[in-house]
């Protein structure tokens, strides 16, 4: 009886270790947090994680796949984020400059009150589309450590460049957009 008990305990212990190891392997293999950031750091464009998110204002949803064929400026922001307040007017100006030139700007408002975010876009007169991701589900997928952060995506849906923190000026924005257009 004692031998069988010991064997049972050993089997249980080995089972627990194998299960934990499996969980670790699964997390490393399947978990894709920071995949975009890591790939860009190695100079390799990577397909942007897909999303379908509701528009911040109005109804309906924006599907990332529907933007294929255009370069995309994907900006993560939140109304409570101080640097986002400085950056938004610059992005709005950029949108007015690039609109109709195969470029689309999309804002992803994350981890924010929807009402606050709506007031924010009203206040800054933002006219490019913004979607709402209150749960921040795309923050991890794109590996965004802090707001704001902007990704530049080519016409085929691959992320080619990112700016962590606020976009400094028009020249930096234009150069990044030109990179995305050049790859297409």
């Amino acid at each position, binding site marked *: 009886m*004692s031998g069988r*008990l010991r064997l049972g305990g050993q089997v249980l212990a080995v089972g627990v270790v194998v299960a934990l190891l499996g969980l670790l392997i699964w997390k490393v293999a399947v978990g894709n947090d920071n995949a975009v950031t890591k790939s860009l750091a190695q100079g390799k464009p990577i397909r942007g994680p897909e999303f379908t998110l509701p528009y911040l204002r109005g109804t309906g949803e924006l599907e990332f796949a529907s933007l294929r064929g255009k370069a995309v400026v994907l900006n993560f922001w939140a109304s*409570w984020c*101080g640097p986002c307040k400085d950056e938004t007017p610059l992005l709005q100006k950029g949108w007015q400059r690039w609109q109709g030139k195969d470029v689309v700007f999309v804002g992803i408002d994350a*981890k924010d*009150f*929807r009402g606050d975010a709506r007031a924010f876009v009203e206040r800054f007169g933002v006219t490019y589309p913004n979607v709402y991701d*209150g*749960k*921040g589900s795309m923050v991890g997928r794109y590996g965004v450590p802090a707001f704001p952060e902007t990704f530049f995506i080519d016409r085929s849906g691959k992320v080619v460049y990112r700016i962590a923190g606020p976009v400094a000026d028009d020249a930096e924005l234009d150069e990044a957009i030109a990179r995305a257009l050049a790859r297409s």
Partner: protein
Amino acid sequence: MTRLVLVAALALVAALALVAAVAPAAASEQRPTAAELESELVCPVCDSTLDTSNAEIARRMKTFIRTRIAAGDTKSEIKAKLVDQFGPRVLAVPPRKGFDWLAWLLPLAGIGVAAAVVGAIAWSWSRGHAAAAAPDEPPLDPEQERRLDDELDRFE
């Protein structure tokens, strides 16, 4: 008669304990305080409870909580509104439903398994000691004992 009084007294104490346990919870649900809600909700940016966070979004959530308390919302309603905005990860304690039940059941299961293992080991050890203390050979029958005594007597 004495036993009947004792049982009645125990039942009364149990009922009072139940009321004492349930009444504050019911009052807390209907009239929550900002402090208790802030300790039960998590800042979505810094992943610490609101009462320990000074992040801008945490401050906005605290303001929201105070506004909703003033408006007469119950604790569940306020939590539901925040979950609607930020998702279930704002809850410091997972809800008792669906997959989240695992967070409640697994620790209990772990304690149960640990108790079973400790019990089994203790039982196994006690059996081992009893076996070691007991003689391996069966006791002598009276005839053998008599003959052994005779043999021993011859050497004296």
